[in-house]
């Protein structure tokens, strides 16, 4: 168009057809790329469900409540793995939430100079960056031998309860819970810190203005104002803990026998998949896929709940 300058300066420039084509093409391209998220998600669900169909037809819901895992007789039930997944993730959160929340409060309050607080925050974030397989290696060779005396003490004092009834002998559910604590702690801390930082300063000033103390303000004003984001973060970490594979697989012992004791070897859905999926064939593949469906539904429900909590429970201030 530039080659034939128009005499009238106010004539609108005509857009050359190739420019329009590029515009429309780029828009359609990004549309397709955005849609790929949905395609991948649907493909994951369809693939895993169709893989599990055979086991679903054979075992039905009995799969969820029986603990047989017998490749010889081709009889499978996922109770051990489901129980292990729920117990490890929930107990690890019970430990990690107070610690993570306490850390978040500590680094958002002005108790220490800003530099020190930022350093603690940075270190907790770097902990999140360490690969889970490295944490698993560390758990096998460093953490588990180090905490075994403590677990032995638990066994000798609380051995009369079913939860500590077996003597600790290396890999087990309890070390797996502890390594999960290390893994979800940074997530809880980071989300709680962001949530606390977003509470408007006026709320805190108001609380101090009517004469409360630091912790009075924290417990009665700041935490209630941030509770929805914190709860969302907790649910998100719960989903992460349920799906966590490598560190848990390396330290939980991958037992096929059911035991309520936390000191005995256990199993989770994800560690069962990691251990057996590569070598499985026939209906065992399908049974593992069925277990994967259970895991996927669990994490899906937890994640959707996390989003729902953040949206519905947020206080309007």
């Amino acid at each position: 168009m530039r080659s034939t300058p128009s005499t009238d300066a106010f004539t609108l420039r005509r857009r050359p057809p190739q420019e329009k084509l590029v515009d429309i093409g780029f828009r359609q391209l990004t549309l397709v790329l955005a849609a790929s998220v949905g395609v991948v998600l649907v493909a994951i669900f369809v693939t895993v469900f169709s893989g599990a169909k055979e086991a679903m037809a054979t075992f039905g819901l009995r799969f969820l409540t029986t603990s047989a895992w017998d490749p010889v007789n081709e009889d499978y039930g996922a109770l051990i793995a489901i129980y292990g997944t729920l117990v490890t993730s929930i107990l690890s959160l019970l430990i990690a939430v107070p610690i993570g929340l306490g850390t978040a409060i500590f680094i958002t309050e002005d108790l220490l100079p800003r530099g020190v607080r930022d350093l603690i925050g940075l270190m907790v974030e770097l902990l999140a960056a360490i690969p889970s397989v490295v944490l698993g290696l560390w758990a096998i060779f460093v953490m588990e031998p180090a905490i075994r005396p403590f677990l032995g003490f638990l066994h000798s004092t609380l051995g009369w309860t079913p939860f500590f009834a077996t003597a600790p002998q290396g890999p087990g559910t309890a070390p797996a819970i502890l390594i999960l604590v290390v893994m979800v702690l940074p997530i809880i801390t980071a989300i709680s810190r962001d949530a606390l930082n977003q509470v408007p300063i006026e709320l805190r000033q108001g609380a101090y203005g009517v004469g409360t103390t630091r912790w009075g303000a924290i417990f009665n004003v700041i935490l209630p104002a941030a509770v929805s984001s914190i709860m969302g973060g907790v649910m998100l970490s719960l989903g992460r803990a349920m799906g966590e594979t490598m560190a848990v697989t390396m330290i939980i012992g991958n037992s096929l026998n059911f035991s309520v004791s936390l000191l005995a070897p256990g199993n989770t859905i994800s560690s069962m998949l990691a251990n057996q999926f590569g070598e499985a064939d026939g209906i065992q593949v399908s049974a593992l896929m069925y277990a994967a469906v259970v895991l996927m539904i669990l994490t899906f429900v937890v994640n959707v709940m996390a989003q729902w909590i953040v949206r519905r429970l947020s206080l309007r201030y």
Partner: protein
Amino acid sequence: MSVSTPPTTRHFTERLTLHYDPSLKRNRFNQIATAIAGFFAVVAVIPLFLVIIYVLFQGGRLLSLQLLTELPPAPGLEGGGIGNAILGTIVVTLVASLIAIPVGVGGGVYLSEYAQNGWFSRFVRFGNDVLAGVPSIICGVFIYSLIVATRIFFDQSFSAMAGGIALSVLMLPTVIKTTYEGLLLVPQELRWGAYGVGASRFVTITRITLPAAFTPIATGVVLGIARAAGETAPLIFTALFSPFWPEGLFNPIATMSVLIFNFAIMPYEAQNELAWAASFVLVIMILGANLLARWISRVSRT
């Protein structure tokens, strides 16, 4: 109601004098609560110290040229290195990045620049959050059924390509989210200015909007790559493992993360040591990438 004013004022100022009495119940409670929070902060930092110290000492003392350039030994033998696994991690992560970054940035551009906040964009953003929450082992199972079991690539089952694709599924949500959120931060005036001087939509996005959001996108992408490099679960039954040098994209390939997993549970001292050495290299790479991402975001902010 006394008639003489001076005593009342004195009484009044006395009452108003601010003094901090640590023995008050509420102050006691404050001190205890602060101590507990501080204790928790220390507890939260301890694991990082212990992990890093052990990885640096156990792995760092094995560091040598031989370690970085040789193949792992057969079980029971001494010596050897993790050269093939280092190369393999780079190859697989590169494949994942080449898929996830264009797709993710494109998707993010659509969500931020074109979408009308209708059902489609809400569905994509919801799906993105769900995809981010899908356990990584499920990604492995998915790619195994889709690519490995069907032997879709030249009749090859386990391959570096399959591993890379599995990692890209894992990276995708991070890239989309950071692109979308980064683009939202770009001031609307920049776009209007570009349209005002006659730029087309395509030129505005590629020459104005995306460069303006480069920092947050680059930070997110670097963090996503670092996370993918350390992932193991999606690789165990897609890329598998190989004791040899990489043989192209369509053969099984060794990666550091799978090497750590395989060698950690072997009953041989030499293999365990190589697992520590691989952890050292992997942790240094990942922490380096994290600090790089932080540096990117700090440099451009000033």
